C-alpha cells in the first residue's frame, strides 16, 4: 500500500526534467527580453515574406499589410501600442493576440507569413527610416 502511494510522487529524474526546462525557458527569456528600453525610440518591424518595413510606434495610424497567399492584415497603432484589427485569414490568432507595446513582443500571422515585432529602434546595426 505504501509503495503504491510512493509511486504517485515525482522521483529524482522528474525534478531534473523540470529544472532543465525551467533553465531553457529562463535562458530564452533573458535573451529576448533583456531590458526596458527608451520608449520614445520604439519602432514596429513588419516582416511579410521577405519584405521588411519599419514604422514609428508613437504616431497613431492604420497600416495595411499584404501577406502571402492573398491574405491582408490591418494594423492599428495608437498611444504606443499596436494591434491587428482585421485579418482575412481563418483563425484570427493575430487579432486575438491583442495589443503589444513591450520591446521584443511580437504578433505572428502564420497563414499570411507576417511577423509584427516591436524593436528598440536605437539604430544599433541598421539604418531605420521612418515614413
Amino acid at each position, binding site marked *: 500500500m505504501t509503495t*503504491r502511494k510512493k*509511486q*504517485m510522487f*515525482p*522521483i*529524482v*529524474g*522528474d*525534478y*531534473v*526534467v*523540470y529544472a532543465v*526546462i*525551467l533553465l*531553457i*525557458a*529562463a535562458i*530564452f*527569456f533573458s*535573451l*529576448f*527580453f533583456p531590458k526596458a528600453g527608451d520608449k520614445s525610440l520604439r519602432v514596429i518591424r513588419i*516582416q511579410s*515574406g*521577405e519584405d*521588411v518595413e519599419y514604422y514609428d510606434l508613437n504616431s497613431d495610424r492604420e497600416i495595411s499589410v499584404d501577406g502571402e497567399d492573398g491574405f491582408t492584415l490591418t494594423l492599428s497603432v495608437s498611444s504606443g501600442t499596436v494591434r491587428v484589427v482585421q485579418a482575412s485569414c481563418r*483563425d484570427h*490568432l493575430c487579432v*486575438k*493576440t*491583442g495589443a503589444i507595446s513591450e520591446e*521584443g*513582443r*511580437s504578433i*505572428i500571422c*502564420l*497563414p499570411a*507569413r507576417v*511577423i509584427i*515585432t516591436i524593436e528598440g529602434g536605437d539604430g544599433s546595426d541598421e539604418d531605420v527610416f521612418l515614413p
Partner: protein
Amino acid sequence: MRTSSSRKDPARRVAELGILLVLAMVFSYLEALFPIPLPLPGIKLGFANIAVILCACYCGLPEALLLNLLRVVLSAILFGNLSGLLFSLSGAFFSSLTLIFLVLSFRGSVSVLGISVACAASHNLGQILCASFLLRGSSWINPSVFSYIPVLLLASLITGTITGILLKLLFAYLEKTGKELRYSLL
C-alpha cells in the same frame, strides 16, 4: 490470457495498436473541438501523449513511434489542415526522440511524469523550430519566433504535469490489475 504466446499473437498486436491509435485520434479531435480559451496560440493539453506513452510501455517503442506518426498524419487529413501537418510532424519527431532517449537511458530514475513533461516541451520546441523555418524570410531561420519559447515551455510544464498525473493513475491501475508492461515508468 496473459501467456507470452498471446502477447506475440499478430492479430492481438494489430488490435491493440488499432485501439491505441483510435484513442490518440479521439484525443486529438476533442482538443481541436474544444481549444483552451487562452489568447496564446498553439497551447493544448496534449492528451494524445497519453496514448503514445501508454503504447510505448505496453506494446514497445517502435510501435509508439509508428502510432505517433500515424496519429499526426491521419488527424491532419481528417480534422485539420495540411499546413498544420508540418508543425505536428516536427513536434512529433522531437517528442519521439525525447521519449526514446528517456526510456532507453534513464528508465528507473525518471518517472512517467518527467517523461510526459519532457515530451510536451520537446513537442513545443519542434513546432517553434518549424515555425522559425517557415517564417524564415531571407535568412535560413527566423530567430524572432524564439521569443515565444519561454511561454510555450512554461505551458508545457503545466500540461505535461496534468497528462503525467493521469498516466501515473493509469499505470498504477494497470499494475494493480496485473497487466504486463514492457517498461514500468512509475
